[in-house]
């Protein structure tokens, strides 16, 4: 019995350890000339917020798969770095990505908090990154030469949400809650500037929270008809569910952080119906070219937000590699003069010196949870 016990524990521990390593991915391809190059993908591929990031990885995989079919003699692979969306895991992952000389470019990090940790490491290593979804504005003001953003930032998303609350929902009493993350707090601040006196109350939520009794009481007693939640699905889903259970019937609106399939499935169709989420990107389900059909053929689901963006960004890197830009420095130089439209999103990718996308290309869409899916509702007009 004694021996049996120790064996069981050893097995448990070994199982946990080996499972953690699984996510690091494997590289394929032949080993001659500059061929088995890798494009890194950095973001939450497991954990509660994986619903938002998985479609991006799928978009990048799709682009690379197409490229490899056409260039079978010199393949490229995607190496995933699963941050679980946690900033405290980002440093270690970024260091190992930077140390792998086969990785010549990076898509991600997907979230703003992990970006703040990973970017200094990538910058030192000269590894170009284009994030398909991290929207905190200050990421572009830290003088990280390698930083590029493939979408708009919260200077556009925050005011757009405010404009939606005021002009589309015509709300007079809005409550604002953020999750105190780099993304959530920043987004809430930008929206608050425009919302002004429409705001009837504010509060915070802590990371990993499960119990929202105090926030729910405040929202209900305030008489708010709209609740803007700036944060991610992990907390938003149980929060919304508990709000509904407590009898609050107003409109729940969030940014791109809740624009994922898990928000719908964890909250449950009945409670999530009518919820609004925005995205500083266009609807991936209406992407151009063969992207939507190809995506559905490969994954049997509709592409989630940012899948088309990520597909286009991977293609930019692949174009560079195809043109013989096989070092990190060459790719960085390639991006600085890039000016072409993506085949799926239709956005013209052209970056300003600080890494922000050309402001003329930025658009913000609103999506509404309708019958268990995020249905594109409208493009929010610029203020």
């Amino acid at each position, binding site marked *: *019995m*004694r021996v*049996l*016990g*120790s064996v*069981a*524990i050893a097995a*448990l*521990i070994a*199982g*946990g350890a080996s*499972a*953690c390593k699984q996510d690091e991915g494997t590289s394929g391809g032949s080993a001659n000339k500059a061929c088995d190059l890798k494009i890194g993908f950095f973001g939450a591929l*497991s*954990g*509660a917020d*994986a619903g938002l990031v998985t479609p991006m990885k799928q978009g990048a995989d799709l682009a690379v798969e197409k490229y490899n079919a056409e260039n079978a003699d010199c393949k490229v692979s995607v190496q995933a770095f699963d941050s*679980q969306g946690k900033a405290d895991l980002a440093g270690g992952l970024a260091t190992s990505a930077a140390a792998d000389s086969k990785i010549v470019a990076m898509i991600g990090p997907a979230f703003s908090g992990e970006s703040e940790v990973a970017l200094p490491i990538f910058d030192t290593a000269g590894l170009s990154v284009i994030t398909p979804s991290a929207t905190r504005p200050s990421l572009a003001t830290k003088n990280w030469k390698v930083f590029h953003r493939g979408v708009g930032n919260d200077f556009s998303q925050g005011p757009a949400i405010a404009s939606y609350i005021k002009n589309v929902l015509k709300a007079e009493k809005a409550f604002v809650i953020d999750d*105190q993350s780099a993304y959530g707090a920043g987004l809430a601040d930008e929206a608050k500037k425009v919302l002004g006196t429409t705001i009837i109350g504010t*509060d*915070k*939520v*802590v990371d*990993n929270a*499960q*119990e929202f*009794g*105090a*926030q*729910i*009481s*405040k929202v*209900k*007693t305030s008489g708010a008809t709209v609740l803007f939640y700036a944060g991610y699905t*992990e907390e938003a*889903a*149980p929060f919304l*569910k*508990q709000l*509904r*259970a*407590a*009898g609050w019937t107003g409109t729940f609106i969030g940014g791109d952080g809740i624009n994922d399939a*898990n928000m719908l*499935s*964890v*909250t*449950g*169709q*009945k*409670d999530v119906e009518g919820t609004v989420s925005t995205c500083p990107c266009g609807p991936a389900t209406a992407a151009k070219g063969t992207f939507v059909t190809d995506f559905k053929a490969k994954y049997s689901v509709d592409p989630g937000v940012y899948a088309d963006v990520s597909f286009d960004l991977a293609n930019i890197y692949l174009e560079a590699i195809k043109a013989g830009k096989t070092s990190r420095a060459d790719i960085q130089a390639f991006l600085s003069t890039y000016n072409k439209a993506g085949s799926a999103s239709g956005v013209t990718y052209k970056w300003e010196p600080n890494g922000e996308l050309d402001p003329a290309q930025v658009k913000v869409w609103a999506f509404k949870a309708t019958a*268990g899916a995020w249905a594109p509702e409208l493009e929010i007009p610029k203020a």
Partner: protein
Amino acid sequence: MDFAELVRGFPELTTTGLVQGAIYALIALGYTLVYGVLRLINFAHSEVFMIGTFGAIWTWAVFGLDSNSGAPSVPKALLLIALAIVAAALLSGSVALLIEVTAYRPLRRRNAPPLAFLITAIGASYALMELMGTLTQRRQVGAPALLPTKTVISIGGWSITPVQLLTLVVAVLMMVGLDWFVNKTRFGKGIRAVAQDANTAALMGVNKSRVIALVFVLGGLMAGVAAVFSDMKSGNTRYNIGFLLGLKAFSAAVLGGIGNLRGAAIGGLLLGLVENYGSALFGSQWRDLIAFVVLIVLLMFRPTGLLGESLGRARA
């Protein structure tokens, strides 16, 4: 300090605080039982609870219910909840027993120092958490909404929903039942005897190993019941849900006087209330801080907790 908010929301803050407190209390009983008998903080108890939350959701899934399904009729819902309670309690109880048999018992046989128990407890906790994290891809899983959300009782500003009512009723029943079991039955006498003096109890014919196993199972059963109500209240679960809840429940046990069953119940309810009132007064970002500051301050004046340690001490 927002006193107006506290006054406005007082009835609702009190109800939701008591419900959360009842869940803390049920988990706290597991910490306190094991401590009372073994002088061991079973840190893996939080994962016993976490596995129970999955057990309940899996049970409902067997009947084809997930977060998207509509609410069943009330009698059917009550039956499903009862089934989930049995399933989660059995699962949590078994996991607790498994931890005792595979991790702690071998240490006791070798007379390991207390530090070995402590690190084993933390190790078992992490191993279980990571195991479930890996098995569930660290996803959060939604629970079905079983009971209607309309209020059942409403007096003045005070109202209560079916889930809240059921949580409080069942939690009180479980606590009273456990108190009766420990104080009035033959098995309970065995538990108290081992808690007072394990070696003398053994000389008197009490099977020490069996009593310890029983204590772990009892704690697991309570955690399993708490898990079902946590699922219904928060509407979801995930692999790391036990960490903070476990820590809070452990604090509740210390607050009431660790080793003391009634203390754990009072400590849990009190902690739930203090957290809610504090969040209303200072803002929800201060929630966890308030809880632990209250604990520290209270321990300064009453180092053994509100009711003091008692399971094995006093007259028993």
